């Protein structure tokens, strides 16, 4: 242990500035000026726990896992061992390996940061930013007269709205029934085109069709169609005649 900062130094850090538990651990090792190959685990673990007290709960798990790991290593270090036991493995070995690996990553990321910063200070031809910053529109300089004239122009250009009148046009099923009954009074058989005149409007066609179906349901007539789209043959039912 070098004569560096005393434990419990009022060294205030924001945890947000660390990129994870390894980053914090590496910083502690640096600040405490200890040898990474011979980490004083008890002291470092204590420091680590002190730093993570201010943690937000969302990032706590990763730091707590490391804290638990440090405490386990600390416990393993306390186990008695023989002076010349060759089979003894330093419980810190895996942690040291990870720290060295992470240290390498940090070195590379520092270098990448410098490279990116250098490149950011140069523009390429026609480089289009992903988030293009639109210059804010200037304040509107306009008199009331100009505004009204503009409104007038817009209104003149806008087309007259086309208004549709929707009117109810009820079907006249009862009228059609009367017509068909009258027809069948005269003839036993009739065809579709006897019921509907050629220039009939669609509401008349619909009324006639519904009337035929209604009369068929009541048993006053029978409908027959030889093939699809063929003309309907209407036959008077004698039974319904009484109704």
């Amino acid at each position: 242990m070098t004569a560096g900062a005393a434990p419990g130094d009022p060294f205030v850090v924001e945890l947000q500035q660390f990129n994870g538990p390894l980053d914090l651990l590496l910083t502690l090792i640096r600040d405490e000026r200890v040898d990474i190959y011979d980490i004083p685990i008890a002291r470092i673990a204590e420091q680590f726990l002190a730093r993570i007290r201010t943690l937000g709960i969302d990032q706590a798990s990763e730091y707590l896992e490391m804290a638990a790991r440090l405490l386990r290593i600390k416990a393993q270090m306390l186990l008695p061992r023989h002076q010349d036991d060759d089979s003894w493995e330093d419980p810190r070995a895996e942690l040291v390996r990870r720290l060295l690996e992470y240290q390498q990553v940090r070195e590379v990321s520092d270098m990448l940061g410098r490279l990116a910063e250098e490149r950011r200070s140069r523009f390429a031809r026609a480089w289009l930013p992903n988030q293009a910053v639109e210059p804010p529109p200037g304040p509107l300089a306009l008199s009331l007269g100009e505004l009204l004239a503009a409104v007038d122009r817009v209104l003149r250009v806008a087309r007259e709205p086309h208004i549709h009148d929707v009117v109810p046009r009820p079907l006249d099923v009862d009228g059609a029934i009367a017509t068909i009954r009258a027809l069948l009074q005269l003839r036993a058989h009739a065809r579709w085109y006897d019921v509907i005149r050629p220039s009939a409007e669609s509401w008349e066609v619909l009324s006639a069709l519904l009337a035929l179906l209604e009369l068929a349901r009541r048993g006053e007539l029978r409908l027959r169609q030889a093939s699809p789209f063929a003309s309907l043959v209407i036959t008077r039912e004698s039974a319904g005649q009484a109704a």
Partner: protein
Amino acid sequence: MNPLAKLLEAALFASSRPVPVDELAALDPEASPAAVVAALGEIRDTYNTNGHGVELVELGEGWQVLTRPEFTDAIERAQLAARPHRLSGAALETLAIIAYRQPIGRAQIEDIRGVNCGAILRSLQERSLVDVVGRGEGIGRPLLYGTTPLFLEQFALRHLEELPRADELSVTLRTEPRAI
């Protein structure tokens, strides 16, 4: 400048990305790759010695005309162009791991960094600095990530080999007290 150099200058000016030498050579069927490289050197020297606001840089496996750093602030103030956002430390770490270990899965990255990397990987992917380059063996065939050509371009690297080799990095921590 000789006619070939002028032709290359026009092509580099027209392109919005670094142009590889073989693509530049295709502009003139009679020009050899050596002549193209010589002409690129001529353009670069012209820009450097005659006092130009731009320079010719070799990066991203090609060549590109870039503005000089001293004019960046003025250009940005005038809103003619904007710098890309700076990457966070966490993003740079993730990128460093991918650059060296690619193709690499998310679990391995998180193992090295000791923290969750899902959100950072997504944002690096959105910025087109890394991309999925395959699937690994093992449970769930995890996605493997690698760096993109844009990564080289935005870090002004000519190719990945330009990154220092792992054994060139100073592995051990400096334990001596820092000079303050």
